[in-house]
Each structure stands twice: as C-alpha cells, then as structure tokens.
C-alpha cells in the first residue's frame, strides 16, 4: 500500500514537472524556447513550415522553436485570444493586421522597432512593408509572413469550346461567364462568407469596387460601401446571378465547381494553386491569368495574407530569439523555398533570382509577384473584419434578391459605421 502511494506521488510529481516543462516558452539548459502559434496546418503549407523551422534550429542550436498549429484562421484567433486571457500567450503569433490593431490597443503585443533595422525593411516589397505599421501610433508591430494576391483560374476546355480565352476586362469576364453557363455548368461559384467572417467572394467584391474607382474602405478605415463604384460592383454580381452565370455556395465552391468541370472560373488567392490543381486532377488544362481590369484599364487587386506579432509577455531572451527566427523566415533563401513549396508569394524581391526555374514552369508566380507591387491590403483597424462580415451579408441579400444592391449596401454601411465608432 505504502509502495503504491509513493509510486503515485512520484508519478504526480513527474507529470507536474513534465507539464511545467512543456507549458509555455522559456530558457532551460542554455537553450531558449520560443512558441509560434500559426495556421499552416495542411498540405505543403505544413511541411514547408516544419522544414524551414528545422533549418533555423540547425543554424541556431541555442534556439528551440515550437510550432503551435491551429486548423484555420478563426480557430487561430480564438486560441490566441484564449491564451492572452489566460496570460499565457505564445512568443509570436500569426495575425491579420486588424487583429494586430486590436491586440496593440490592449497592450499585449510589442513594437518591433528595436529589432528591425532599416536594411531589413528595405529588403521587403513596399506594399508588404506598408502593411506592417499600425496607424494608432505609426509604429512597426508586425513582420511579414504569408502574402498572396488574387488571380483567375479557368477551365481552358470550357472557354475554348465557346471560342473564348482568359478575359482581360471585367466586362469580358461577365460575357465569358454567361457564355459558358447552362446545362449544369456555371460561370463562377462564390462564397461571400457571412456575418461571422468574410470569405473569398467578399474579397472579389472589394476588388471589383476598387476596379470601378473606389475601394470599400478609405485609408483611414472608414467604410465606403455606398459609393457608386460599390453599387456598380454589387449590381455586376447580381446581374451574373440573374443570368445564371453565378451561384452561391459554401466551402470553396469555386474550387469545387472548377475541379468538377462544372465551373468556368475561380477567382481566388494565388495560394489556392496547389488545391485547385489537385481538384482539377489533370481532367483538363487549368488556366491561370492576372485579374481582369476595370474601366480605363484600372488594375485592382488585394494583398491578402497575414503577418507575425510578438507578444508582450515574452522575456528579453525570447524576444531576441524570436526576432532571429522572424528575420530568418524573410531571408531571400527562406522566401524562395517558402514560395516554391507553399504557393504564397515571396515578401522580398531578392527571392526571385533564386526561383528562376520555378517561375519558368509556373508563370502565374511571375504575374502574381508583379501584382504584389501594386496590390493594396485592407487598412489595419480593429473593426475591418466585422465590417467585411457586414458586406458579406449585404452580398447575400442583394445576390439572392432579398434587397436591392443599394439598399443592402446602405444597411451594411450603417452597421459598419456603428462598428467603427464602437471600435475606435
């Protein structure tokens, strides 16, 4: 009996010690452990992230990087928030810029001003660099991670059967989408998302509005949902729906329809290339092209993807180790490897010469990287995601005919302005 009690006590102690060692980050036996909460959880994203991290650890034997992988961005944000609530955040975390704004407002992240040297920043694409600062104090809070732009994927067989090729303007796109629709086929299937969060369809609406002359958010984050450009963009989608050239769906409907040979187009992130190719599975040649342009050749695209922040709870040693890791991730070599394996774009042009063969085989990377030089990210304010959800609801209302385009956008504008006021 006594022996059993002693064994049980030892087991509890061992578990406790193990748990304490496993919990959080810190330094032990001269090695600094940092934790990175991220959402690169599937396919080549996961393996590329693990390979890069192993390479870093090999080059820095005094640093141990623990990846805390979450299945999707929604879960990632919840886990980061829960960890912050419990005062046990990771050392660094993947974030959208409006999350970073919320975190900075609550003083739970630290600026990277002390770490990033001018040369580090100069190495990045200007549009990527501009997305790292928060407007509240104009300080550098983020470091770039996975960046993408939107491109068009299309079924070459379906388009050529109608004598069409990749459209160059949005008017041409609408005509082509109408031409290929019917007999079970649809020009494009989109998911706008919902009030809980936007999806790819909402991003396309933002791009259309920008192409017609006015982005849906001003530089100071103010919603501009009722601009003539936004109403025109919404009516464009409503027209496609009425013509049977657009359908709504869930869970990447554009990719599913394209892959099944039932959809003409998918307007999606460049990072979808791997998943779209897999969905098509060689049934027909999948075409890729830059996004069509608006009136007068207006180019519009959205820089999507996330950055990384450093949480304020980290010790000096952890912050130093984390910065080494962040710098490693954006080095030309790492970015060349990351872009070739993940499908995301390199955040530094210095990676391009190291990807010559890859770009030759995958020309979409070249025009996507070019789009990165002009693409705009949504302004980093805490209310942006919520306002995008309101836009997604407006899209549902207008496209399904529940409300007119202007009424749906008017209602979303009112709500977004309220969200902005309460988020300021």
């Amino acid at each position, binding site marked *: 009996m006594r022996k059993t009690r002693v064994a049980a006590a030892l087991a509890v102690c061992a578990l406790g010690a193990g748990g304490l060692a496993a919990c959080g980050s810190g330094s032990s036996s001269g090695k600094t452990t940092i934790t990175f909460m991220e959402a690169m959880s599937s396919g080549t994203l996961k393996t590329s992230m693990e390979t890069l991290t192993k390479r870093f650890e090999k080059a820095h034997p005094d640093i141990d990087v623990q990846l805390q992988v979450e299945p999707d961005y929604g879960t990632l944000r919840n886990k980061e928030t829960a960890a912050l609530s419990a005062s046990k955040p990771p050392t660094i975390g993947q974030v959208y810029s409006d999350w970073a704004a919320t975190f900075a407002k609550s003083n739970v992240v630290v600026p990277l001003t002390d770490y990033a040297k001018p040369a580090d920043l100069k190495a990045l694409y200007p549009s990527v660099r501009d997305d790292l600062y928060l407007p509240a104090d104009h300080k550098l809070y983020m470091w770039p991670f996975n960046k993408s732009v939107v491109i068009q994927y299309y079924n070459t067989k379906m388009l050529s059967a109608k004598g069409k090729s990749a459209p160059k303007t949005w008017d041409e796109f609408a005509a082509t989408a109408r031409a290929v629709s019917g007999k079970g086929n649809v020009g494009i299937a989109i998911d706008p*998302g919902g009030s809980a969060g936007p999806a790819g369809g909402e991003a396309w609406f933002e791009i259309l509005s920008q192409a017609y002359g006015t982005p849906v958010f001003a530089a100071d984050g103010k919603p501009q949902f009722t601009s003539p450009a936004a109403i025109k963009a919404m009516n464009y989608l409503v027209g496609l729906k009425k013509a049977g050239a657009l*359908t*709504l769906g869930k869970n990447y409907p554009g990719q599913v329809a394209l892959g099944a040979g039932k959809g003409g187009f998918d307007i999606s992130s460049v990072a979808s290339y791997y998943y779209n190719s897999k969905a098509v599975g060689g049934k027909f040649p999948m075409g890729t092209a830059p996004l069509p342009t608006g009136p007068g050749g207006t180019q519009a695209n959205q820089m999507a993807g996330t950055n990384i922040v450093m949480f304020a709870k980290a010790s000096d040693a952890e912050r130093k180790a984390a910065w080494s890791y962040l710098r490693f991730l954006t080095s030309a070599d790492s970015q060349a490897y990351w872009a070739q394996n993940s499908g995301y774009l390199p955040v530094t042009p210095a990676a391009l010469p190291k990807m010559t063969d890859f770009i030759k085989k995958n020309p979409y990377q070249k025009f996507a990287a070019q789009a990165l030089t002009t693409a705009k990210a949504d302004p980093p304010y805490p209310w942006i995601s919520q306002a995008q959800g309101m836009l997604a609801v407006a899209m*549902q209302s207008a496209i399904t005919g529940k409300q007119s385009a202007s009424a749906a956008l008017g209602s979303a504008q009112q709500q977004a302005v309220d969200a902005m006021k309460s988020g300021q």
Partner: protein
Amino acid sequence: MATTQLDRPSRRGVAVRSRRRSRDRSGPTAVLFSLPALAIFAIFTILPTAYTFVISLFDWNPLNVSQSTFIGADNYRKLFAHSTPSFAASALTSLYFTAGMVIGGTAISLAIALLLSRGGSWLSGVRVAVFVPHVTPLVATSIVWVWIFNPQFGLANAILRWLHLPAVDWLDSSSTAMPAILTYSLWHEVGFTVVIFLGGLAVVSGELGEAARVDGANRWQEFWYVTWPQLRPVTLFVVTISTISSLQAFTQFFVMTEGGPAHATTTLSYLLYQEAFVFFHTGYAAALAVVLFVVTALFTLLQFRTRRSTLS
C-alpha cells in the same frame, strides 16, 4: 405460506430504520459522499454561470482584463438597441426553429411511433433505422447535408431536376435556409423522441382501446379519445426536452449556414457565439447568455407547471 411473528417487521423497527435512513441522507457522511459531485457541479456549472453574470455587467476586454470597465446594465439595454441582427430578430428566429422542432418533431415522432408500435422483427429493424441518425455526430452529418443541399451537385436539387422542377438555393436563400435546417434537424432528432413515444405506447392500456372499439369508435376516435390522453405525460416530456434542445441548438447553424444568409438563421445561440468568439464583445455576449438561460428556465418551468396540473 403463513407469516410468522418473527418474519413480520415490528412498527418500532420500521420507524428506527426510517429515522436512520433519513439521518444517513442528511448527516455529515452523506454530505461527505456528495462533495465530489458538488465540487464538480460548482466548478464547471455554478461558478461559471455566476461569473457570466458578473461579466455581463462589464465592458469586458478578454485580452487585458485590467482594461475592463463596469457599465452596470448597459449590455442588457443594448440587447434592445443593438443593430442587425437584433436580439429580438434572433429571438424570433430561435422561436421559429423551436416551433418547427417541437410541433413538427412531436407530430412526426408520434406518427412514426404509432406505425412502429405493433412490433415484429421487420419493424424492429425499422426502429433501429429511425434511431440511428440520432447517434451520428452533428458536425459530420451537418456537412453531409450541406452537400445534399448543394445547389449545383446536391441530391435535393437532383431530385427536383428529375421531377422537372426548378432547382432551389436551399441554404443560400433567406426563405429556404431555415426549412432546410429544420429538415436536417428533424432527421437527426426524431429517432430519440420516437423511442420515448414507443416507451409510452408500450404501457398504454389495450383494454380501454378495445372497449372503445366495442362501443363503435373508429381508429381515429380511438387514438384521439383513448390513446392520446394516456400519452399526455410522455408528450409533455418530449415537448420539454425538444424545447430546451432547440433553444440551445448551435452546431447545425454553425456548420450549415453560419447564421446566414442575411441573418435568416441567426438564432440566439448563434448570435451568442458570434458576439463572444468572433467579435469578442464578451460583456454583451454574457448578457445574451444570461437572458437565454432565463428564457430556457422559464419555458421549462412553464412546461413543468403544465405537466403538474395535467397530472393532478
């Protein structure tokens, strides 16, 4: 066999045993034995409920609690002023779903139970088939039904096309999204209530039915005037359980529609999730949770009252 003097328990003996049993149930030993269960209940249910009420009185910042400010009943006032979707609109959506589940679910499960009550090996197989959906995971089957309702590839529209009827945007139209979710939810839940009704039908007196038939009652009259009144306690139980579970239903809304399109399926439970875990309006969400708790408790009390008065 005659009972002897020794076999018969004395009145005094019974009284002593009864006193001892009563002392056992309220004494310190009983409390000691109840403590683990009480502790678990307190830690995981009572304290979080009380804490939720406290949070509902604050403009709560989950990222940095020191930035939270006491605002009294402001979150409760916002319930009646908050913009789209409003608390009232979500409450109506919840009621729509609850009414569909309670009325539809009770009627369908009673009808199925009556059909299956005769027994036999073939009908036993059907009983299993009816019950099986209830034990399937909500998330997995919700995803399956999203594909059934897919406008382009789904089984539902394939059937409509086969019947030369126009396709429907099941989950993407404000008018059909809730009926589509109700269809799925009824498919998932009816198996359980059928089993409850079958249990009730098993103890219904056959003699009363026989007497009614002898008196010239047809099948419908026998059901309406004889069988149905005897099933009233079971029906009340089914209605209570269905009301509580429908008011708290969340998974199918989360997986199938995310509260859309255009808030057509934003129930109170979904609104609560969205405010708490998407927008992190924790104080407001806590106020919603408190109100949902009170509404559910009131419904349940009302139904228990009705049950008591019916039984008496």
